[in-house]
């Protein structure tokens, strides 16, 4: 039981740390497209691992296995790229200002 507690605590704190890092990225970065990276990757993995920690925790409470938190993780991992894609597309259409060091792709006109 102590081992399970260790695993759950580890995943919880790791997940919370990743989620915080995603928000720090959102706070610190200088243009919109750089800000997009933190939330799509770090926050998704962080909250996903917290959901898995919750699944492990409730599985060992004596009421049989509890896997429905895995659904949340799955859902987050499927939807994060989609919403990031939509936001990037919206920002490109809005012509959000950005600092570019190099660009090999021309900025497309809104179609």
């Amino acid at each position: 039981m102590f081992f399970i507690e260790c695993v759950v605590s580890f995943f919880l704190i790791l997940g919370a740390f990743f989620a915080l890092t995603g928000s720090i990225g959102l706070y610190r970065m200088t243009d919109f497209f750089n800000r997009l990276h933190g939330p799509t990757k770090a926050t998704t993995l962080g909250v996903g691992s917290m959901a898995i920690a919750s699944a492990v925790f409730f599985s060992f409470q004596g009421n049989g296995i509890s896997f429905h938190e895995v659904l949340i993780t799955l859902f987050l991992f499927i939807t994060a790229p989609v919403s990031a894609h939509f936001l990037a597309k919206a920002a490109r259409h809005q012509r959000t200002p950005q600092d570019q060091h190099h660009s090999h792709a021309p900025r497309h006109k809104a179609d």
Partner: protein
Amino acid sequence: MLNTAVIIAFVLITLAQLLNLYRLFKGPSLPDRILALDNMYIDALALFILLGIHFNTTAYFEAALMIAVMGFISTVATSKYLMRGDILE
């Protein structure tokens, strides 16, 4: 030990929410604000998961799932609106 871990996680996620809130108010462009809102949805979901572990109940699971679904749908809808607004000039 688990209680301590849950409380540390609460503190970290709340800090994350404050940073998101800053970006939501400050964010120079509309996509920034939508991104911050989307991130706030996901962090609220994390808070619900933590509450579930803290009170040792699975009652919060449905709420967390609903928040995940609503957050995704509203992000897609608002970004779609931004794109459309540009198309229609």
